């Protein structure tokens, strides 16, 4: 018995040792090391002599990572995708191929997952490509990868991605905000779309959803807008680009992007308007900056910002000690700055109009911006199907003054309204007027009423 116990003890100790060694072996042979060895062999092929080859092959394996602290991201993709920044790897097999056409978006500065999705922290293929349990962001399908541009480039045309511009336009004009919130503005009938891109629904799902909401999401209250295939695709692009992450401002803040917005920020910060004017707006002590980028070369302006005395002997402009991207950003801003921009900076107020126009125009903007048009139509014509509501559709607002006083309409906007039901036994109509009092100020609501009444009068004239 005692002998057997001693043997058992030694056997178990050996087993424990073996298990530790097995765990160590498992930890020491990750798949990324195999990839790195293949890559070194590929690199060594290009070396002229044996010594250089041996030197390349002797490089120790290591994890490569891009840290994006402001975005809480760590991208280790380049641990295996070793050739992304190496043009000589243009024809190399994956995962080593060079990533062409990136422009300024260098992977070592921008990371990979901000565009491609996937799990940047992972160091094995399945995990990194993200189609694993409990990782919400698998790699984005190639056909939709350009949608990611919109995650930083949130405004204006994105070169090469017309889908985004069109998607954005559709979103703002078709009244999507009537039901969906985006960045805090919009209704609450449908889901908030602010971080929709991060949800990473499959693009295919989104596209089918836009073509026929009920086909993929049974019982959805979303009306069929009868989008064309192209429009559905544009909207899908836009949806995929929506994110909570402040990517653009992160990359600006680490001064990777000399954007005009960053330039404007500096322009205000450094108080350039204390001496300069743009198109007559501002101070007159120093030269007017309107069109300054046409009068001087970029290099000249850059040098002027570094060392004013040198370029312009006797210049009273102080040295601002700006780093290179800040100077680029300032120049970029000056290239686009107009007198109105500067007025805006100076006054921080909107442009003036007659008070009545202002009210009606603001009302119209609100009506579109908060998505009223989604159900009531861009011309107040209504007509969106609403099964089992009286009339079976959302009513037109063109004759609203016949049935209600202005105050009553304001009360309806404030408190919302459930449409009268056609058949008591039928289902609840999916669409209803939400309460806006928590979203819109009283002023906003009054302006919308002003806008509605401005439309009514025109109709009355027609009678």
């Amino acid at each position, binding site marked *: 018995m005692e002998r057997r116990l001693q043997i058992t003890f030694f056997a178990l100790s050996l087993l424990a040792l073996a*298990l*530790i060694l097995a765990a160590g072996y498992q930890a020491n042979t990750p798949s990324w090391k195999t990839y790195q060895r293949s890559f070194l062999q590929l690199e060594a092929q290009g070396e002229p002599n044996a010594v250089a080859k041996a030197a390349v092959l002797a490089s120790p394996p290591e994890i490569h990572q891009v840290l994006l602290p402001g975005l809480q991201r760590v991208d280790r993709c380049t641990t295996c995708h070793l050739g992304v920044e190496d043009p000589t790897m243009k024809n190399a097999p994956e995962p080593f191929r060079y990533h062409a056409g990136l422009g300024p978006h260098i992977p070592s500065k921008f990371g990979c997952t901000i565009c491609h999705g996937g799990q940047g922290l992972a160091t094995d293929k399945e995990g990194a490509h993200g189609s694993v349990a409990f990782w919400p962001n698998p790699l984005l399908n190639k056909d939709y990868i350009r949608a990611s541009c919109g995650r930083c480039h949130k405004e204006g045309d994105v070169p090469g991605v017309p889908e985004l511009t069109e998607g954005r336009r559709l979103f703002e004009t078709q009244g999507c905000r009537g039901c969906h919130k985006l960045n805090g503005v919009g209704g609450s009938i449908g889901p908030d779309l602010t971080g929709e891109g991060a949800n990473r629904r499959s693009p295919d799902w989104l596209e089918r959803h836009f073509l026929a909401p009920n086909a993929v999401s049974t019982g959805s209250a979303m009306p069929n807008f009868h989008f064309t295939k192209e429009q559905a695709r544009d909207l899908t692009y836009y949806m995929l680009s929506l994110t909570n992450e402040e990517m653009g401002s992160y990359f600006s803040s680490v001064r990777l992007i000399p954007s005009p917005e960053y330039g404007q920020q500096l322009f205000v910060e450094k108080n350039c308007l204390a001496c300069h004017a743009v198109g007559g707006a501002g101070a007159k002590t120093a030269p007017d900056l309107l069109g300054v980028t046409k009068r001087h070369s970029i290099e000249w302006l850059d040098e002027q910002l570094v060392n004013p005395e040198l370029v312009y002997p006797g210049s009273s402009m102080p040295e601002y000690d700006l780093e290179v991207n800040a100077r680029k950003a300032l120049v970029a801003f000056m290239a686009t700055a107009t007198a109105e921009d500067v007025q805006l900076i100076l006054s921080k107020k909107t442009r003036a109009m007659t008070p009545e126009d202002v009210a009606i125009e603001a009302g119209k903007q609100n009506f579109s911006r908060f998505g009223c048009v989604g159900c009531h139509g861009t011309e107040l014509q209504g007509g969106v199907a609403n099964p089992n509501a009286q009339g079976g559709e959302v009513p037109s607002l063109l004759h609203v003054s016949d049935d209600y006083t202005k105050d009553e309409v304001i009360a309806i906007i404030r408190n919302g309204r459930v449409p009268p039901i056609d058949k008591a036994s039928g289902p609840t109509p999916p669409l209803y007027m939400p309460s806006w009092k928590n979203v819109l100020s009283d002023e906003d609501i009054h302006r919308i009423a002003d806008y509605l009444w401005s439309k009514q009068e025109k109709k009355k004239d027609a009678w």
Partner: protein
Amino acid sequence: MNLIREIWQSIVRRDPLSTDKGKSELVFLNVWLHIHPAKVKKENMKFRHTFYLGFITFFLFLILLTTGIALMCYYRPYPPQAYQDMKDLQFVVFMGPFLRNMHRWAAHGMVICVFLHMCRVFYTGSYKKPRQFNWVIGVLLLLVTLSLSFTGYLLPWDQLAYWAITVGTNIGSYAPLIGGQVRELLLGGHSVGEGALIRFYVLHVAVLPSIIILLTIVHFWRVRKDGGLSRPVWKLEPEKTEPLVTIGAPAVTAPLKTVAASKEKTYGLMEVVTGKPIFETITPEEEEDTVFSYPYAFVREAVVLMATVTTIMTMSLFLNAPLEELANPAKTPNPAKAPWYFLGLQELVSHSALLGGVVAPALMVLALLAIPYLDRNPSRRLADRKLILWLFTIFVVANLVLIVVGTFFRGPGWALVPPWVHVVGGTE
């Protein structure tokens, strides 16, 4: 050579192990081993008496202590870095997954073994006089073990952790008057967030380990002071014809003799503390049944240690500890479940928050603590204890059934769903 011998002798002062004196001295001259008696009864080493559950629990705790300290080197207790650190352990730390798996499985194992150990002590009647207080310490150790496991559950900061702790602390908040405040104190806020994470971390790595170590010391100490391991039930005399005799002690009826202290002699404390020992003692004929702890007890303990370690290592090599998505307070899984050992409670809560969440667990803990004082039956023989054995068995089975129902039979909305039915789309 002399120097080497001198160094050796400065460390080891005992006689050679080939002698009985050496075997005894190995035990009581060594600070780590002296918690053992120098000699043990053969019957007490029998596997079927204790199943070595106390040892296994202790060894699991040692595994948890070492892996836990290693894990602390890689962990930042604030969101969302905590979750990123879990991913780093998984993907870039050398043997990181192995380390975390060992900690995880040893933790679950410890909860199970503490409970089994308690059952063993109950069924053998070992909580009876003079061991009542050590049973109380044991129940406290069970509670601290559960708390350790519960606080550790939050640290990965994934969905599993976040919602298990949200549900778990909600159960606690059903306590009248103080429930809400206790929850707030524990979480450092009204919901699980940064404050909760740092508090749970401090409890998990500093406060609770200190408490469990202190209580364990008392627990072990009392095992010895209460007379060592209880005797196996099958060795108990059917009928005590004569009271047990303590070697050299006066008979029960004999009055204690007071002898005047001799002036020629210095007295040790042991000689001053007189009186009858309170525990089961060895009769002269039973002296034959004892063996030296070295090597008989030690080799058995060593085998159990290595069996525990290799079991946990094997599990850790092949089974990965779960890690779900990053904690998201806006996305409630349906159903959100507490850690498995609290699912019995959650099941009770689903029927009645106050009765199930407060009254029942409070009564359970109080009943456990009071068992040795309420059970006045001096006999440890199974045949004499039918009623209480039934009661305890019902308690154990009820707990297990509730946990199994809560774990495997509850689906979205806490509806009764058998595990073989697949529910689609539970999360939104």
